[in-house]
């Protein structure tokens, strides 16, 4: 069993009205599949962090992990 814990930051917390979502998978899964099943639009997500690495949406999660999502945000 692979447990994927999605951690929201910034305005994603406001948008999804929660800090985390947990999903379970029987086999390795790509980040874009996790996002799709959690109903998270890639349009809202700029940076994806798994452990200490910055990954792309096609990154394959092979074990239980926290996937930290940082929202699209601009300058200021």
């Amino acid at each position, binding site marked *: 069993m692979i447990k994927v814990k999605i951690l929201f930051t910034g*305005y994603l917390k406001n948008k999804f009205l929660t800090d985390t979502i947990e999903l379970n998978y029987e086999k390795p899964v790509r980040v874009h599949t996790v996002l799709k099943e959690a109903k998270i639009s890639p349009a809202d997500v700029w940076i994806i962090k798994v452990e200490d690495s910055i990954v792309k949406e096609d990154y394959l999660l092979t074990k239980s992990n926290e996937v930290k999502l940082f929202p699209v945000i*601009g300058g*200021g």
Partner: protein
Amino acid sequence: MSYGYTGSILHLDLSSKKYWIEHPEENFYRTYWGGRAIGLYYMLKEMKPKTDPLSPDNLLIFAPSVITGTPAPAIPRYTVCAKSPLTGAEGEAEAGGWWGPELKKAGFDALIIKGSSSTSIYLWIKDGKVEIKDATHLWGENTGTAQKIIRKELADDKIRIAQIGLAGENLVRFANIVNELKHFNGRNGLGAVMGSKKLKAIAVRGTKSLKIYNKEKVKEIAKQISQRIMYNPLSRDLRELGTLAVVRPFYEAGCLPSYNWTTGYFKEGENLTAETYNKTILQKTVGCYACPIRCKRVAEVNESDIKVDPLYGGPEYETIVSLGSICGISDLKYIAKANELCNKYTMDTISTGMTIAFAMQCYQAGLLTKKDTEGIELIFGNKEAMLKMIEKIAHREIGLGDLLAQGSYIAAQRIGKGAENFIHQVKGQEIPMHDPRVKTGVGLSYALADYGADHMKAPHDPFFKDKDSVGIKEMRGLGILEPVSPTDLSKKKVTLFKLLDIYWSLFNILGVCDFGYVPRSVGTLEELLEIIRSATGWRTTWFELMKVGERSINMARIFNLREGFISQDDTLPEVFFKNFQGGPLDGQGAINKKNFKKALKLRYELMGWDDDTGVPSYGKLLELGLSWLIDEVKDKND
């Protein structure tokens, strides 16, 4: 009958203490609209090439727009223009607050100031009347004190005041101009131009309302946008976390500018996040004229060893980084103190932080010694040293303070011995705190900004990354149809950023805050167009409006060509052509220099400029109604 604009432009000659009022025709307003476009019109018409920016011959122009002062949300901004003493190029800086709308109510669409007073003065403008008043008792005062004195002597606490502090008076090349103590025309050193004219402040007050073509319609749209802003997650984020919401993604991704750009990895980044700020130093949030977002922070610290006065606002994202991680400093209280000093002395926090970080790196490399610093251990992370350096620069203390008051570009030339390897600038202006290695469109904006590197030249790449991104879904009316990756530097990206540059040039002209409208917020293209139509009564279109933005870019280009700038000045600091060092992005990210140069050439072509020299073609100038500038490029096009 004119709507939206007053029809009056005030010209002042501070040398002769004379002023006159110009009443341009409607077509003038419909061609230039406000802000930088009006500023550049007068700079190109009335200022001789190679004018010394700190001489009486430089113009100092304050310009809101034909829609400033309406009840529409997030349109409070106005522009100050002059030839920049920091870059020698076209200088401009926009500020929010209340001063721009108040100038309109006081009866003027713009102020065109030339000459220089022999003694310090301030201007008092009320309901169309102008007074030049003595300011010798204000010279040397902090902005907070000066504002208090002016309001008391004019016996009106609703007066709005734009002014300079000590740094402007002392001609620090990155001095800025502040209104209401918290809203800054931040970049390009325009406060030094004001100081060179011995002009301490401009106090404005208007008691008449503006003529608006269809006020009810503007109010109706304002209500709709404001309601959506209240519930939009991104707008709520701006209210709750402010601009420094971006600290966390940058710090955790390892692209938070740190230690004078030697790394994007800042171990103590958590200390600089919005969440830490809110828990430790935030006193309240404030906003601008007619804006429901209230994104601006006010900080207060009241401890035995350090106090921060909330009168001067609080650090925003750019300041948190430029006076924080860029100098290796992670103590928010000291960053807030540094911000307070910069604000009351009116120094641009980006250039201040970058110049001090440059000096820190020079010191650590042995290019500056303790003799130069008068005993200060000027190393990264020394927060006390940073505060001392701000004082030295603002007061232009003989030696290092005076040297750094010139900005990092000039300081590096004077220090020599390889110091130029430690500066990061475009056209002489220090780069802001967004790393183009993670958003290449920002890199194009830095390189092409007429007024030196600026992060407010175009929207940032992530808003266009996906088919469902706001920038793609909501900006189809401008022909923006397909998403592009933030790190892409293809033809698609170059084409997109040509449009975005024009779009935000228009924002700057009209005084529109990007936090109110797409792609950064909820106000739509259709709503903004209707606001403009309802304010002015002009049945304008996005075609016409985009031409207004494009016209101003070409005017700025010609101003800079006249001053000797060439296509090689459109470039990025070397650091961005190298990979990140340290942190999650270690060994990645370098922008390919060859591709970047190709992108710039393509951009020139798309603009109708020579793809080698970047000189606007005759045809482009004719198309934009700028035939009066053809002689300026004649030699360069032959």
